[in-house]
């Protein structure tokens, strides 16, 4: 799975928030709500790049394009986290956790939750 750029991810989030599919007009409106005012050309360009990256697909409905996410937010995050882990910690999750604690990015509560999750094996995160 290819990685989306920051701007492309913005669009993916909009589509995910919209239930996995969205029309251009819906995307434009949602972005505007977020305070992002991009031109049509930029949005369409980014969307077509996401299609090239196989993260989206486009279906024609009349003259309009309906964009559908090919991966869910969870899937994407999971895969990206894994690749991130591979890239920086050579797949060693302990190293990641250590780094997070060291930089005080992980609170004690978070750590306890993680620990339970790790030992329980169940999906305990909300």
């Amino acid at each position, binding site marked *: 799975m290819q990685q989306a*750029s920051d*701007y492309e991810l913005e669009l993916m989030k909009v589509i995910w928030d919209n239930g996995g599919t969205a029309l251009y007009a819906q995307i434009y409106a949602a972005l505007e709500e977020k305070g992002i005012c*991009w*031109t*049509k*050309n*930029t949005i*369409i*360009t*980014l969307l*077509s*790049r996401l299609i090239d990256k196989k993260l989206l697909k486009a279906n024609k409905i009349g003259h309009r394009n309906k964009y559908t996410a090919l991966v869910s937010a969870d899937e994407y995050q999971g895969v990206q986290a894994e690749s991130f882990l591979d890239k920086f910690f050579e797949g060693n999750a302990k190293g990641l956790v250590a780094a997070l604690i060291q930089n005080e990015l992980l609170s004690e509560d978070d750590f306890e939750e993680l620990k339970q999750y790790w030992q329980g094996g169940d999906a305990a995160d909300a």
Partner: protein
Amino acid sequence: MHEILKGYVSVSVAAVLIMAALMLFAPLYRERFSKRWQYYIWLVVVFRLLIPWNPANGLVGRLFLAVQEQHAIKNGSVYKAMPQDKSLQNGVVSSEGKMEHNGDSSEAKIENNGISSCFKMLPQITEYLWMIWLFGVVLLFMRRIILHQCFVSCLKAGCAPVEDIRRLEIFGKVVAKSGLTKTAGLYTNDTITSPLLIGCFHPAVVLTKAEMSDADFYYTVLHEWTHYRRGDLIYKWLVQFTICLHWFNPCVYLLEREVSRMCELSCDEAVTKDLGAAGKRAYGDMLLRAVASACGFQRIPASITLHRGKKLMKERLGALMKERKNTRGTAVISALAALLLTTGAVAAGAYRMPAAAQEVRQDAEILRYKKDTSEKALMQEYKEWGITRKNGAYYYKGRRIRIFMDVRADASFVTFHFDKTGKMDVKLNRAKDFSVTGVSGMTRQETEEILEDYGDAVNEVKDEKSNDAKPKLAVSRLQKEELVQQVREAVKDCKDGTWYVITHQGVQYLYYYGMPGKYAFQPSIGQKKTMIKLADLGGTGERYVLLAVRGNQPLTVTYRGETVRYQTVEV
């Protein structure tokens, strides 16, 4: 099929004329007319080259028909004289045995030059050439498409999308401002030396990897997007296709060069139209910096393309500095000039394919190929006027015709028939709309003039009718063998290359040895003197002139338009 090739060859010739006119008048309009005009005016040439069709036969089309007609005459199937367009005739038509009748005066128009013989060959060759032509067209166009595809795929491989959202937004605003609903991609590529635009349906602007300021970026994408907005890609492909169609014409490569040159110049003009002096300067700076970065990338230091690029760049920068005032006057004049050129392009004309011709019977080619049907119709028409044909001879109310002429309003022939055993001469006259206006006899003068052109045949007629009351012809052509003993002796003593008039028993014999080929003569007998005009007919002949002129009137002889000095000999 070769008809289509003929059409394309004819428009090729016509287009060269238009291009010549454009180039010739360039100093007049280059600084005055807008660059946009100078760019789109080439469309006239392009469309002339693409459409081998004309509402009426134009200049070149008529030229082609004349050539074809000559070809048909040679084949002996059609005898048809040219319309009375003298300017056309003088230049091109070689008329061996061709006559044109102008009311009462008749003259044999005789011209022969290099061009005519060259054109005469054309229809013959084209019948086989069209396959080579078509093969060339397909091959060249395929080659261009394949090369383009290779270029695009190479380009795509090296393309990286522009991630900078600010740049994307600048570009997005340019696209939005153009008013097009199309959207375009934006890429950088390290294999190219200058920014470019690709894709008619999915356009994309590709930039070089060179660093550039936001202002330079803005002007660059504005320039490229202006190309797209104006449909320059379509124009370019149209020119490419035209070049492939007319690959045999070297002038089309000049067309390509001029169009791509004007494309850049007019694009600059369109981009900077609404910019102030500062904007123009910034735009020029961008162009210069683009060249500088391109030179950095250039691996071959001095190539022709680079030189040409430099020359063009100089012209583009120069055009930016010049302030051209676009007054209403120039707008009107340039519109008129465009109209004039378009009219000229139509008037220069294409060869008209017989299928499209409405005056079917006027068309030599049709007469040649559809001889049966058109002849049937013609014979039916003759019948209505009392003229019938049996075993190749024409009869008028049962009497055999000697000279039969079916003459159009423009004095050209539909039919010309000579039959030495005929008893009467008949002329069928036609109106401009080709309808028959009546049947008439011929005046003595008309008859004699025609008979003279029939040379030897006349001699035979004369011999057969020696007892006839008709006066003998004043001037007639002779063979050496026909001469009486004394004159023959005198001829033997004549030097080659010198003109002689040998007088014997009231007859003057004009003699000259050293003609390049066959010749035609045209006598005019006045009250006090006789004039004889001589002209070359080409081909191979006896190499000598031998004419018998009855009477002792002073003789003036002209050959190739000059009066001949001759020696007189009496025997």
